[in-house]
């Protein structure tokens, strides 16, 4: 992996696994498996989220995701997209674990189709059950600092607050609460949902997040492969800016050039 000479490899760890890339990408909404694979390559992501769905019994020979995105090369993170109850999410992840043997999973329990906002009551319940069954859930949630602590206590191995509704591209709507969650967490925090363009990803990283998860921002860009590259750079830039320690903000101007010696 190429890294600038002046920057140490800045890795992060979730549930005992270490990763270099702080960008996680989804595999939905692409025009083709080929485009998906190319964008994934350009993004530098090491982890991909995948959904668990019924096999099409009438046409079981359709090409499969696993043929284009190698589960041995990338870490598959099964999600529970489409689940509106804790029971559905738990069933889905038990199946996912059987299909691939993975304990590291993404939990999302949605409250309604229109906003795809998390149902936090069901999400918390599912987190407790999954943790008891030996899963390592990375949990999609609201940007509520107390809910984040409750999830962590319940066994979440990562907290994943939304920046804005799934697929909205509205960017980080509440920097205050995201920062509060980062400060209060003892597990990694990743913004998941709402990222629309590169600057949104950089903002998330500048708030101190450990990573960013996105799908639509890349898949629905006019040029997904190019956007994937932009996101890779944005996550890196935001992270380095965070580590560098930004300047303070001032209410008024402060000149950059000396006042003395004016002609």
């Amino acid at each position, binding site marked *: 992996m190429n890294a600038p000479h002046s920057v140490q490899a800045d890795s992060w760890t979730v549930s005992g696994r270490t990763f270099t890339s702080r960008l996680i990408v*989804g*595999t*939905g*909404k*692409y025009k083709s*498996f080929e485009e*998906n694979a190319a964008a994934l390559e350009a993004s530098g992501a090491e982890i991909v*989220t*995948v*959904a*668990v*769905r*019924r*096999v099409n*019994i009438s046409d*079981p*020979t359709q090409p*499969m*995701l*696993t043929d284009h995105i190698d589960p041995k090369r990338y870490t*598959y993170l*099964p*999600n529970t*997209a489409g689940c509106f109850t804790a029971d559905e999410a738990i*069933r*889905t992840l*038990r*199946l*996912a*674990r*059987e*299909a*691939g043997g993975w304990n590291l999973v993404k939990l999302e329990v949605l409250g309604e189709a229109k906003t795809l906002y998390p149902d936090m009551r069901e999400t918390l319940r599912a987190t407790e059950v999954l943790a008891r069954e030996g899963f390592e859930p990375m949990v999609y949630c609201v940007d509520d600092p107390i809910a984040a602590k409750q999830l962590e206590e319940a066994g979440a191995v990562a907290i994943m607050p939304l920046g804005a509704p*799934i*697929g909205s591209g509205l960017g980080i709507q509440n920097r205050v609460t995201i920062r509060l969650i980062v400060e209060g967490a003892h597990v990694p925090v990743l913004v998941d949902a709402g990222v629309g363009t590169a600057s949104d990803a950089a903002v998330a990283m500048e708030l101190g997040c450990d990573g960013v998860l996105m*799908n*639509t921002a890349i898949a629905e860009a006019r040029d997904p492969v190019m956007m994937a590259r932009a996101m890779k750079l944005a996550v890196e830039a935001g992270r380095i800016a965070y580590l560098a320690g930004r300047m303070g903000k001032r209410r008024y101007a402060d000149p950059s050039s000396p006042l003395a010696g004016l002609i």
Partner: protein
Amino acid sequence: MTVETSLEVTVNGEQRQLPAGLTIAAMLRELGIEPAKVAVEHNREIVPRSSLDTVEVADGDQFEIVHFVGGG
């Protein structure tokens, strides 16, 4: 092998007729599905990979057969 009876099971929400005496793995192959690429839920319980060749399909059984697809 002569089919003595046939069973009715539900697979992914659809009713299906199958010959009796099949294991789950055999049923999958009968449906054109490669067992190694899917996960199976049998009457709301996960079937471990290792048991696909031994558990027999019974009349009235309900199956969910899933695999990984693209998603966010």
